[in-house]
């Protein structure tokens, strides 16, 4: 099993913290069980300014979970509009940070993010088609 988390451009630093925490003694068994890997926009071959709809479609095609912070305006090609327009019952969800800055203030918050992520992955069949799922 391999779970790929595609990290949006505004979360690169957050992903590094999550990756380090997942690799720690506390969470390593889960990292290994799910085969969690972090993928960054520049590693995808997409343009640095790729639009939300392009990113979302790539995730669906390749089986990646998109991880975002959702602070942008709604437009026809926005993530929200794309999910509503193109989402299917088996589409993979988008994981969205509720308060991304907290990850730098509170170490226990990092564990809460990891825990929440793992809960979703354990419930994978029920998470499909839900569109967007919020992390704490």
């Amino acid at each position: 099993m391999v779970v790929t988390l595609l990290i949006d451009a505004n979360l690169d630093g957050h992903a590094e913290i999550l990756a380090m925490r997942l690799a720690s003694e506390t969470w390593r068994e889960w990292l290994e069980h799910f085969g969690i890997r972090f993928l960054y926009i520049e590693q995808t071959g997409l343009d640095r300014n790729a639009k939300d709809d392009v990113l979302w479609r790539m995730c669906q095609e390749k089986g990646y979970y998109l991880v975002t912070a959702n602070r942008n305006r709604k437009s026809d090609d926005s993530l929200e509009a794309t999910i509503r327009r193109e989402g299917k019952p088996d589409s993979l969800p988008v994981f969205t940070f509720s308060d991304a800055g907290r990850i730098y203030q509170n170490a226990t918050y990092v564990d809460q993010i990891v825990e929440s992520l793992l809960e979703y992955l354990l419930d994978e069949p029920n998470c499909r088609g839900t569109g967007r799922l919020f992390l704490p």
Partner: protein
Amino acid sequence: MSVSTVRIIDIGRGPQIEGHRLTVMDVFYYLHRGYDFDFIQRAMPSLKREEFDAVVEYVNEHHDELVEEDRCVEARIKQGIAEQKAKGLYHEIDTSIPLEVRIARLREKLHQRQKEQAEKNGGHASH
């Protein structure tokens, strides 16, 4: 003298740095909460100094509307979480329970899933 060529454009996602996925709102989230460039660059290592400066210039000219947009974003997030809770899809984390106990529960859940999967596959465990 160096002249910044970084432009802030709007192609539908709100103002963003030209040639980058980063938006003004992505950076403003931190600026509005009192963080400086060094901190913000830790969160977004791909953000270059001249791009940050262009965002700051934009922020200075549109401060009030960005504050209002930030408020709307927070409201949207709260609404999204409320909708998710209503569907029973939000995982509340009970921080009064020690982390080790919560991890043990996750482990039980994993074993349960593996058992269900094995039954589905005709008795062969899936790992």
